[in-house]
């Protein structure tokens, strides 16, 4: 199997496209999610849904406009609430800080709820190498962990697997009695994971938002594992990207409702948490120690670039669910943590453009992603800008660049352009009846479409004919 890497996109896509099980599973999941999103976002009319989308977009932009100040305000207020706040410039620092906290509290077992930041920095592997037991507790992430794979979607990480595949995995790795019933399979995993929650001495979670004016850490989960992880172990560490801060409680109230409607079509996530601090001394349940690590890991670079728009993202996955490219190739093809249109934008930004050259081209620029984005990120624009940068920075292959330069020369020289047109017209008469090219550089392109026939006359000729004798105009 080829290694997962964004630069292997084309090869990975080629094999993914022919995987029928994968295609069916991904199409089923994304189409369901996309239609649920439509119903939920526009439950109170098209105009109202669009108004809410614009309101959410405004809130995020207003927060980014004051990001450094809001981070300082959030830090002060979280500290006043009893939360220990630290900052990490990159993955290395996050890992060091988490390990230091774990050592300080003599931690052995760690229960994790979903955190995309932790995926970004491969936290699990490092913690396991340091001798900690790490248990992913989101059912999807647990399945991923058992299979030794990567998530293929940011909201529903295991949509690439069929029920039968998960059944076989559970039977093989956990000795589950045979069953094809999703409820029985979930109950079986529930028992195992429940034991894990009860034994864990540290919980690690992500964070969906931080409210600056109150110093509140906010999380949404459906399964309840987020509640377990933040309620049962005596130590809770939350990893939160620095862009997640919002200004007011009211801002949060809008965003935390737009998020689940866009992600899974739910009016609210089952559990919407507002965490203001560690447990009070006379309280039953909740961690005695609560840490928030504010993670940069490339975000301040994005802030200081023309791609700042990407930082508005609230990780709902709506763009992924409508993307025709994602539907065809699935999430693993993108080779890193974030797939789909938002992945095609932020993977190059977070890992370096030269490490993700094919991704800005993994889009038909149809615009569906922008249309569904709850915070109105202009994803097609960002993809075009990235393509522009790839060209400017000469990251393309020498053949590609030579070809493009040749094309530019021909199209700027009227005589050559005319010759090329004539050549194309006569040449296309030689094509087989079905107007397909044999396999070759352009062959792939004509496998699913036909080369359109050349018009008998060019636009120039047509124009000249139409305007004969109307020079006075």
């Amino acid at each position, binding site marked *: 199997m080829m290694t997962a890497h964004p630069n292997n996109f084309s090869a990975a896509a080629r094999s993914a496209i022919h995987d029928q099980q994968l295609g069916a599973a991904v199409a089923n999941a994304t189409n369901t999610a996309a239609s649920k999103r439509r119903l939920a976002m526009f439950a109170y009319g098209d105009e109202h849904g669009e108004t809410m989308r614009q309101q959410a977009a405004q809130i995020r932009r207003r927060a980014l406009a004051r990001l450094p100040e809001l981070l300082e305000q959030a830090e002060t207020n979280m500290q006043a609430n009893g939360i220990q706040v630290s900052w990490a410039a990159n993955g290395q620092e996050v890992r060091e800080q988490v390990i230091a906290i774990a050592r300080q509290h003599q931690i052995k077992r760690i229960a994790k709820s979903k955190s995309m930041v932790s995926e970004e920095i491969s936290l699990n592997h490092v913690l396991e190498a340091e001798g900690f037991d790490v248990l992913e507790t989101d059912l999807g992430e647990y399945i991923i962990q058992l299979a030794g794979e990567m998530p293929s979607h940011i909201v529903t990480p295991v949509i690439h697997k069929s029920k039968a595949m998960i059944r076989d995995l559970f039977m093989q790795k956990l000795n589950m009695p045979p069953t094809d019933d999703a409820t029985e399979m979930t109950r079986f995993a529930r028992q195992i994971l429940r034991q894990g929650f009860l034994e864990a001495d540290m919980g690690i979670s992500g964070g969906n938002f931080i409210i600056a004016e109150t110093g509140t850490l906010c999380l949404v989960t459906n*399964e*309840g594992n987020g*509640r377990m992880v933040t309620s049962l172990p005596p130590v809770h560490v939350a990893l939160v990207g620095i862009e997640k801060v919002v200004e007011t409680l009211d801002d949060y109230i809008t965003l935390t409702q737009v998020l689940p409607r866009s992600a899974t079509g739910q009016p609210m996530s089952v559990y919407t948490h507002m965490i203001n601090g560690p447990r009070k001394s006379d309280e039953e349940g909740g961690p005695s120690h609560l840490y928030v690590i504010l993670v940069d890991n490339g975000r301040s670079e994005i802030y200081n670039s023309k791609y700042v728009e990407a930082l508005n993202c609230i990780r709902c996955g709506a763009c992924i669910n409508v993307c025709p490219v994602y539907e065809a190739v699935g999430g693993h093809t993108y080779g890193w943590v974030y797939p789909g249109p938002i992945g095609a934008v932020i993977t190059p930004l977070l890992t370096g453009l030269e490490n993700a050259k094919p991704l800005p081209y993994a889009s038909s620029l149809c615009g569906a992603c922008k249309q569904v984005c709850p915070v109105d990120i202009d994803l097609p624009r960002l993809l075009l800008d990235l393509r522009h940068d790839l060209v400017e920075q000469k990251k393309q292959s020498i053949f590609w660049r030579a070809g493009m330069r040749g094309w530019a020369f021909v199209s700027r020289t009227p005589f050559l352009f005319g010759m090329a047109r004539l050549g194309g017209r006569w040449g296309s008469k030689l094509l087989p009846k079905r107007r397909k090219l044999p396999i070759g550089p352009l062959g792939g392109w004509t496998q699913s479409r036909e080369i359109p026939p050349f018009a008998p006359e060019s636009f120039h000729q047509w124009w000249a004919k139409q305007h004969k004798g109307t020079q006075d105009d």
Partner: protein
Amino acid sequence: MTSREQILQRLKHAPRPYADFRQEQNRHDMVPTDHTDLYRLFVEQAQKLNCSVHECRSTDEALQQILAIMGEDKTVLSWDALPLPGLAEALQQAGIQTAPANDPHVRVGITGVDAALAGTGSLVLASKPGQSRLVSLLPFVHVAVVKSDQILPNFEAWAEQTKKAGFDQFRATSNVLVISGPSRTADIAMELVLGAHGPAELHILILP
């Protein structure tokens, strides 16, 4: 330079994005509630979320309902104070004992709520001494007792109320949770399964 200073400096030295942002004029609620009958709206929305809603006409009826949910169980998790007079006596009479909130082997947990949100069928539970968050988390069955005057229009209305009471009160609460239906997952082939980690059943008892 610490990482904190380094990150903040980089952000502060960047050209300000969206410097021309407009302050929104009118805020809109995600769930508009010109609905006059909040009670009815709450019941409908909660049912849509797979909650079992019991509209009780008296405390007696609510007590009977709780005993029916308890079945043969002899232990229960419960908040200290519930808006249900006679519950302690009724449980005692049935030989049911209250276990410590962190007992993971108890099937049913009974809580009150701090508010209910009609527009989304949600329950707001603040974690406080005597109101352990574990009671609505560990058991397989969660019973929430709601008084009809606790029903607010929507989440925005709750925020309004919270601001009026002052942020100090909100911030002094370690954990404020909005529950919208029983625990669920669709991670296996997009099939909806209730009770992934939290309660699989959520009974809402509404008192007059």
